[in-house]
């Protein structure tokens, strides 16, 4: 070996090797740089090109708000088009921020990926929208805003800040922002009575945070489509080991119980909501940190039961109905009680609070900007793209219809 390397080093000196490597590396880097430039030229015309075509404008977000404020004075139809601001919980942030990003970019219906449809793809829930308007134009025009018909120029701009649930609630009450994001009810965050809440703010629920219980395909095929809360507690506390020990289940297979990382937020909330106590004991066969791993385990093992984000369910990983004290919560979003409901014990509402103000239309809880923005989240499109794709639980059909109907009076 030593001789070999000696022979090798005769032919190729270290300096030669290093310089060749350097040249290759530099060439590689140059190649990467070039291709990424090309990529951004090709695809992301919404960002840079948009502001360039604006002509008068310089850069970035401040420009956006200036433009919006400028528009305020010249706005037609009497609608306020100033910057819509929101702030609060990091849990709600992914939903509202993704919504805001989509809104501000105001994609054309030919885009296919973010809005509308083309021959390659179409956005979820497009068949109930089917418009030839741009994204923000479509939602804003329903509430009396003038469409800009210009990509990257929404009828009004939106921005989302990140802080805490309590801070977001306080900020909206103090009038610092238009929308306060909160993962807990404002009554708990600010120590309010329910009356005070009803007098001061309007609660807009845009989605839910929760962990549906799922089983593997073989369990589902064996006829297990629902379990009672108590049965799930028995399973996760190790009181039953085989599916056929459960009442009304005829399936001889050991239960493979999948839990989540010990002491994590998901683990604690499951113990609290399902087992009755944040310190309740659990006896599981395996613990996994991430939704992907849980989904993978459920799909490749028999007799499995787990809890995880809804977005990872598939035809191998099936959510089941749960019977809590006589109420059956079903996985079908059109059912009477669903696992997407607010009172399903593993769920909590994600709120966007708005302040009740005198100068709102009819002195109500939302102005037209807030209503237009909020309405986007209450469509099939919004629920799938902003809520479900962020691993949260979308609202069931009945809630969507009810919440949308509250915005109806503001439409023009």
């Amino acid at each position: 070996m030593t001789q070999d390397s000696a022979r090798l080093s005769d032919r190729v000196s270290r300096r030669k090797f290093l310089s060749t490597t350097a040249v290759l590396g530099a060439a590689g880097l140059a190649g990467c740089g070039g291709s990424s430039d090309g990529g951004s030229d090709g695809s992301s015309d919404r960002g840079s090109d948009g502001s360039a075509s604006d002509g008068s404008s310089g850069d970035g977000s401040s420009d956006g708000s200036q433009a919006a404020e400028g528009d305020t004075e010249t706005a037609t139809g009497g609608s306020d088009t100033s910057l819509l601001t929101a702030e609060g919980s990091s849990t709600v942030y992914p939903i509202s921020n993704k919504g805001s990003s989509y809104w501000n970019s105001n994609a054309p219906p030919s885009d296919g990926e973010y809005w509308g449809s083309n021959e390659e793809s179409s956005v979820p829930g497009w068949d109930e929208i089917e418009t030839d308007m741009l994204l923000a134009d479509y939602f804003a025009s329903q509430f009396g805003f003038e469409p800009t018909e210009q990509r990257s120029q929404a009828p009004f701009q939106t921005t989302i800040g990140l802080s805490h649930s309590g801070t977001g609630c306080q900020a909206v009450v103090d009038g610092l922002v238009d929308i306060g994001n909160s993962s807990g009810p404002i009554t708990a965050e600010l120590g309010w009575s329910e009356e005070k809440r009803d007098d001061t703010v309007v609660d807009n629920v845009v989605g839910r945070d929760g962990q549906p219980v799922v089983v593997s395909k073989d369990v589902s095929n064996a006829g297990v489509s629902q379990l009672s809360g108590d049965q799930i507690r028995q399973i996760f506390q190790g009181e039953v080991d085989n599916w056929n020990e459960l009442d009304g289940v005829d399936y001889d297979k050991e239960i493979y119980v999948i839990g989540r990382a010990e002491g994590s937020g998901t683990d604690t909330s499951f113990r609290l909501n399902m087992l009755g106590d944040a310190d309740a004991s659990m006896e599981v066969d395996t613990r996994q940190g991430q939704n992907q791993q849980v989904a993978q385990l459920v799909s490749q093992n028999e007799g499995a039961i787990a809890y995880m984000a809804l977005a990872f369910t598939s035809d191998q990983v099936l959510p089941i109905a749960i019977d809590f004290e006589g109420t059956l919560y079903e996985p079908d979003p059109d059912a009477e009680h669903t696992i997407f409901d607010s009172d399903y014990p593993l769920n909590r509402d994600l709120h966007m609070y708005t302040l009740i103000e005198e100068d709102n239309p009819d002195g109500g809880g939302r102005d037209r900007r807030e209503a237009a923005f909020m309405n986007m989240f209450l469509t099939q499109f919004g629920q799938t793209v902003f809520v479900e794709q962020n691993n949260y639980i979308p609202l069931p059909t009945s809630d969507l219809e009810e919440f949308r109907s509250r915005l109806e009076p503001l439409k023009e």
Partner: protein
Amino acid sequence: MPTVTDGERTGLQTRARRQAERFRDFVDDTSPEALVTMTVIAVSLLAAFVGFLLVSSLTVVPFAVFLLASGYGWFRHQEETALILTLTTTVSTLLILGLIIVFIFRESIPVVQYESATVFGVSVPGLRMFVETRWDAVASPVRYSMVPMIHGTVMVTVIATAVAAPLGVSAALFLSEIAPDVVREVVKPGVEILAGIPSIVYGFIGFTVLSPWASDQFDLSGQGTYLFVGVVVGLMALPTVVSVAEDALSSVPESMKSGSLAVGTTDWQTMTSITLPAAFSGVSAAVLLGVGRAIGETMAATVMLRGVPRLTEPLMNVFYGQETLTSLIARNYGEADGLQLDALFVAGVILFVTVLGISIGAQYIEWRMRRKLGGEV
């Protein structure tokens, strides 16, 4: 006996005296200016280090002094500066090692106190971690027993060694003694490349292919077995074993083998009675290195194991794989806090002590072989 100790002591004393003499000579031979530069470099670096430990914003001052002094020294007294710089880097390596040891031991103190157990009326800190087997960081009684993880690590290591040692040593024997040159030239670099495959790749294959297959074949509830984690970790340790053992075998002098062949032994007899015994220290070092790799292997174990610390029933049941010391840390560091986090440091301490023991063991074997065979082999 007393004479031997006396001899050793005088030996030590002479050595110390000689060192002191050398140091004095060095000081005498070096110009005072160079000596001052060296002192400034050493002291400023020490001061910077202390400042760094105290998180002082003034750390930058001694560090700047150190850089300046080194820069000056490099041009004016290159020899002495190089000497002090190499010395300080060596010292700092040892210092960093020492600090890491102190840190992991210090971090594990709270949970060691929490897990005190009383024996014959005396409270022994940390004992309960090794006599009970319950690990539960949430539900009461909260216990952080290390027994399940030690059990898991032992299981995985034993299986991995059972895979890697025979395969690795025989492959090394083949490559070194039997294979034609062309084969060796191609296969040995290939084996070394195997060592470069990231462990998550093995783990991922284990998680998606091996574990579900084992679960089906052996009719297990769910996936994750010590058996297959051990096999995978053994395969991962294989290149290390082959490579080190092959080096050891091929360093046996040709004259020894020729001598054996000359008295009429066959190739195989030479291998088993001359080459292998002569290279025994190197081969055992190879196996121990493989064991070390198996103990420390984290990623593959983490993705393939179940992650629920508990003993298997019966103890030698290899078809259920719960948790090892390393995978415990890897799986829980993100979510753990308080005592649970400290318990992870205890796992770190146990790993550290184990690896220390292994490396001392390897040194000892080497030393004994060298003494037995006399001189380098």
